[in-house]
């Protein structure tokens, strides 16, 4: 077995959570890498939807933006964005939504709006985008974030997207909320009545204490803690080839259209 990075472990761990045939609402970055890794390994019929309106994309390289031409060219169809949100997400046709954020609390509530107050923010973040309704309506949400005490906090400054917030079952949200939180220091799952994220699996060579140190709330740890299998040679080969193709494609110089 080869050496691998923590990012690779995270990506592989996230990819393994996906089942063939599931319909995924994919964001750029690690979720996109994980979904395409899954599609190229154990889940060839995984359906990838990007909010730009591309359904069933099978990109050969990873997109740099949510609306890359590659996504359109390899899609089953490209539809208007309003239809993606109304007829697919709101309609309950998305199995898995991926989310990340600037801040997360122990119940999986996410902040991607502001640090500080809303009216006089210390840092204005990009905002909700698709996150609010993905959090509500995807059957399950997978949150993927690198852990740090600054981002895994006791109290988020603004609730952009709901996790296991009080009253969720009566709120009109179609989905079950965050089912898993994949970090670079282990995998957390909601536990008990409150749905508090609890360490449920560690990665090889990363002890639970490292997770405790990286997470800003007093981290609960399952008594029977799993250890993820390290990335297989096959997984690493496919992932690295995908990333190499991506890097090569994006190295090609773009000329000014003049």
């Amino acid at each position, binding site marked *: 077995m080869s050496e691998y990075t923590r990012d690779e472990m995270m990506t592989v761990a996230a990819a393994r959570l996906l089942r063939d045939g599931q319909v995924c609402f994919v964001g750029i970055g690690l979720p996109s890498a994980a979904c395409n890794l899954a599609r190229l390994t154990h889940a060839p019929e995984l359906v990838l939807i990007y909010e*730009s309106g591309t359904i069933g994309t099978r990109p050969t390289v990873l997109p740099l933006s949510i609306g890359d031409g590659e996504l359109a060219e390899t899609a089953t169809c490209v539809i208007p964005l309003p239809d993606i949100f109304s007829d697919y997400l709101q309609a309950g046709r998305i199995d898995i939504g991926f989310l990340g954020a600037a801040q997360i609390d122990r119940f999986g509530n996410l902040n991607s709006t502001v640090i500080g107050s809303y009216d006089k923010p210390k840092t204005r*973040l990009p905002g909700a985008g698709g996150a*609010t309704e993905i959090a509500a309506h995807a059957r399950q949400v997978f949150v993927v974030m690198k852990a740090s005490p600054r981002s895994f906090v006791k109290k988020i400054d603004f609730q952009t997207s709901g996790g296991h917030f009080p009253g969720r079952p009566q709120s009109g949200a179609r989905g079950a909320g965050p089912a898993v939180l994949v970090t670079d220091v282990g995998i957390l799952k909601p536990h008990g009545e409150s749905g508090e994220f609890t360490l449920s699996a560690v990665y090889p060579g990363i002890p639970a204490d490292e997770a405790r140190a990286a997470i800003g709330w007093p981290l609960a740890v399952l008594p029977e803690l799993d250890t993820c299998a390290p990335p297989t040679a096959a997984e690493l080969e496919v992932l690295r080839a995908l990333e190499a193709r991506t890097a090569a494609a994006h190295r090609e110089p773009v000329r000014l259209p*003049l």
Partner: protein
Amino acid sequence: MTEFLPLKDAIAKHVADGDCLALEGFTHLIPFAAGHELIRQGRKDLHLARMTPDLVYDQLIGVGAARKLTFSWGGNPGVGSLHRLRDAVENGWPCALEIDEHSHAAMAVGYRAGAARLPFGMLRGYIGTDLPARNPRIRHVTCPYTGENIATVPAVNPDVTILHAQRADRHGNVAIDGIVGAAREAALAAAKLLVTVEQIVDELPPAMNNIVLPAFTVTAVSQVPGGAWPSYAHGHYARDNDFYLRWDAIARDRGGFTAWIDRHVRATRDHRGFLASLREAA
């Protein structure tokens, strides 16, 4: 009848200070050339609507052209912050910017309601979020059948929507190929629709069910090759991801931003001049 005008004339004739403008295009076909022309002509006091403000609105906000922003995601895609947007919101530089913030799903139904000339759109949305507490424009109606509480947003009806598209024919019919985002809805929601295109052709490629904006919905067409750069025009040129990265450095600093705008936008005559000035600088 659709007018065929140089971009400069189209903006001069159809966009006024104080207008509500939507420059749409989701990653793809962002009308940058039109945004630059708005800067050259010194339009101000604009209410800018756009799902993803992107660099085009970072530039308009940075020169102080905007008084209000209706949006749902304001970042540099794949890179990070829009520094001019942040500076306006965090520090009021160069002027205060009123924020009308939504989610993508809500902006989409706002445009769709606008296109249908309904006064509001509705969604099962804004659940588990602080946004409605911060935006009084987010309200609710009661379903007259089930009694459910459904979130609403006001229709978005820009005075002018500006799009970039691959092709128009000589009647003024405009065809968009590839990722369309909410371009169709924003186009039909507007009182006036200006479109910059890569090409004007005798006949559009056969595309029975594709996205076409019929001529009678199009106020003016301006041929501006490369008009979506640094975003892209499917089939014409690719997205300049490098420039999106470089923008982070350019826009991080007020002085650097202003110098860039002065040199490349204000000191150039048109989009061709803009692109040429970038090539020289490279």
